[in-house]
């Protein structure tokens, strides 16, 4: 699974101050990306309110219909409306991304900070842990766990993915913490009577926020990718509907071959749109956080 190249922090982090919000809102990539994500989410959430639960069931619509007024994105072989499925699939997929990315980022930040700031034996141990998790192909373990767990649901799925998404941020945060803790404002904080934990959270953490934000988005994308990959292998949360699961069923019923393009193309396009939108937000954040990129538009 590829990850988006989050630039290693060679440049001093530009610190998120109040102004950064305005910067972000002036960044076209950021706003377009965010708008697309919000629109997708809102449309599906609101749409979901208008759907009768009975319409979600298999056989609620005539099967294998191309797009029409009754089912604007057509129906599946099981007689479900693709559009109605989307109202669940999009929020579910984003939920996976959100939970996994939050988990991975938070765990990564904590472990990275602990390792980098405290150093010594803690660092030695955590570094090994980080290295182990970095050399283990995450998809492998995801498959293993998903196959061992009994019937994964969307949140469990997200949890598992999140548990494998922390090593990268941990490594980056660690190296950042290593250099930050040598900065003099940390010493000043200590001389001002701050304890270690306070220093970590109040003095160091704010510096990593932009980076963590970018990493969060990256993890978000990776998690959705992982979820759909696992789903395509048949290890996804099959009772729930996600974009990956939609694709899984579409492939299982041979939709490409039977030319039910509305069925397989819909999740494919949405996945790509989602990725692109997230990536745009990521780029926007990167540009604002890393002014050197700004000039390059």
């Amino acid at each position, binding site marked *: 699974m590829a990850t988006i190249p989050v630039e290693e922090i060679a440049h001093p982090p530009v610190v998120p101050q109040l102004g950064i919000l305005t910067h972000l809102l002036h960044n076209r990539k950021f706003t377009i990306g965010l708008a697309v994500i919000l629109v997708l989410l809102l449309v599906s959430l609101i749409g979901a309110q208008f759907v009768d639960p*009975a319409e979600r069931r298999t056989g609620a619509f005539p099967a294998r219909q191309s797009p029409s007024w009754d089912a604007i994105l057509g129906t599946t072989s099981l007689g479900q409306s693709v559009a109605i499925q989307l109202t669940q699939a999009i929020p579910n997929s984003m939920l996976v991304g959100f939970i996994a990315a939050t988990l991975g980022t938070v765990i990564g930040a904590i472990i990275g900070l602990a390792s980098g700031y405290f150093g010594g034996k803690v660092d030695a141990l955590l570094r090994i842990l980080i290295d182990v998790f970095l050399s283990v192909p995450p998809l492998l373990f995801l498959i293993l766990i998903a196959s061992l767990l009994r019937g994964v649901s969307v949140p469990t799925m997200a949890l598992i993915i999140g548990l494998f998404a922390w090593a990268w941020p941990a490594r980056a945060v660690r190296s950042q913490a290593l250099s930050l803790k040598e900065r003099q404002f940390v010493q000043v904080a200590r001389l001002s009577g701050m304890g270690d934990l306070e220093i970590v959270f109040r003095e160091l953490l704010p510096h990593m926020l932009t980076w963590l934000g970018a990493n969060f988005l990256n993890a978000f994308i990776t998690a959705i990718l992982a979820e759909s990959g696992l789903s395509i292998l048949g290890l996804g949360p099959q*009772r729930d509907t996600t974009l990956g699961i939609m694709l899984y069923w579409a492939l299982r019923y041979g939709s490409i071959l039977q030319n039910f393009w509305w069925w397989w193309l819909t999740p494919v396009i949405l996945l790509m749109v989602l990725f692109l939108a997230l990536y745009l937000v990521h780029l926007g954040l990167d540009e604002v956080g890393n002014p050197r990129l700004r000039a390059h538009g």
Partner: protein
Amino acid sequence: DQQEVTRAETLKIAIPAQITDPTNLNIYAAGSDRSATGLHQFIYEYFFYNNLQTGEFIPWLAESYEYSTDNTSMTVKLRDGVTWSDGQPFTADDVVFTYELLAKNPGMGNSAEVTKAVKSVEKVDSLNVKINLITGNPRFHLNREAFPAVGIWGALTILPKHIWEKEADPLTFKNSDPVGTGPYRVRDASQNGVTLERRDDWWGTKVFEVTPAPRFVQFTFVGDEQNVALALSNNDLDAAWIGLLSAGTFQQVTAQNPNVRAWTQELPFAWPDPCPRGLMINNDNPPFDKPEVRQALSHLIDRQAVVDLAYEGTTTPAWNIWPEYDGNIPYSEAIADIHEQYPIDTFDPARAEELLASVGLQPSDITVRYVVNADNVEEQKNSQVIADQLTAAGINVEVQPLTGNANADARLKGDFDMTQQPFCPGYPVENLELFHSKYYVPLGESAPWFERNSFRYNNPEFDALVDQMLALPPDATDQILPVFHDAMAIWYRDLPIIPLVETPALVPFNFTYWEGWPTSEDPWNMPVTWWATTGLVVTGYPDPATGEWVGGLEPAGG
């Protein structure tokens, strides 16, 4: 040195998965695959073949069998002139050796069954063997696990003594270049498949004066459904295994390649497989221990919708647990009155509510833990529809997709409320034996086998009737049917499992290179590629009544 493999001379059959280790061709080891490698179709052969479609019991390596009067032993007469592929004659010694080997090695497949059923095996002369049974059993020739007659699937296989007696551990012997009696030998084997090459010194050629048409047979893995469909359309395949193509995809293929067809020209396309699908209900888990609850569930399932949606119309709803082959029709007819009394296969939510109310329950009181084998696409598809139907009726359904050992474990230990299961072997009486309490174990312990009562049905009254039927020879239909009627009356009343649908065997045949495939218009054999009887589909067989040669593949247009 070797003949080039040319497309026109090759029969190509798609298999559903890669062969993990193509050098492992020990048919008795857990890790070998007898049917994706052609082992039991073309390398080994069996005493008798049962053509379920026509009801013929076809002698092959053996000429005949005979029970002693008390049914405690059976003497089999072997065919003269049969030789192993290395030229050694096939004799009673091989039979005795194989039985003894199995008795000694509990790790080999079939060993337990042989130990349970067979006391000893004696060589009468080089062409006659006597099998002494532990209890009198007039149906032993149908016990594929302990006798080398192919019912529907992998029977006990006789091994060449002169090869296997040299092996210290028959379980770790890989047998990479197997010596069999069949018309083909292994040419090469890789993970993506096996190529078999015709033997010119096959005994059948001398005895029957026939030669199988394809010079090569390939079992090949081309990928999943899509790839199979593409390959069929491109004439890269001649046939495929069961379960590789859904009806929709199949129709797409036939639209592009009119030379491809299946059993019927129109829906359902598929031939009914002998193992109908049922939903195992855990009879030991309250509230599913109440027959009313099981019956209510049965009434909440709209089988026609399952057929239309999940099977895309390729099969029919089932109301019992055997396939509707000609030979089984008397049994079905015999219980028509019971079916009328218990129309468990009708979709009737009102009736279901009544039944539940009669035991003081409402749909919303019931939570069904529905275990689904996530490796099995058919089950996955069905579960979507079935879960939705039960949910619509107000029942809480927790679907639990499981894979691998987690799935096997949950089933055997009874860790489910409901789960789908094929019910084999497809003879009505044998199928009822699955419900016998001799296979009953308490929850938490492993049942002997999935459909061997992992649903935990326990009714002595029913057991007695089954024992009574098992003591009768299979052709004593007149005596069997009344007992059968009584047993089924209990069965429907208790409804230990819920019959679901007949199983579609949608097997595509490509007529571009080969013709003579069995179809509904010419139903001379079963349209199968994964059973041992596939060998007979390719070569044809002598009619047991007339001795006339029936069927076999021919080069197209030849």
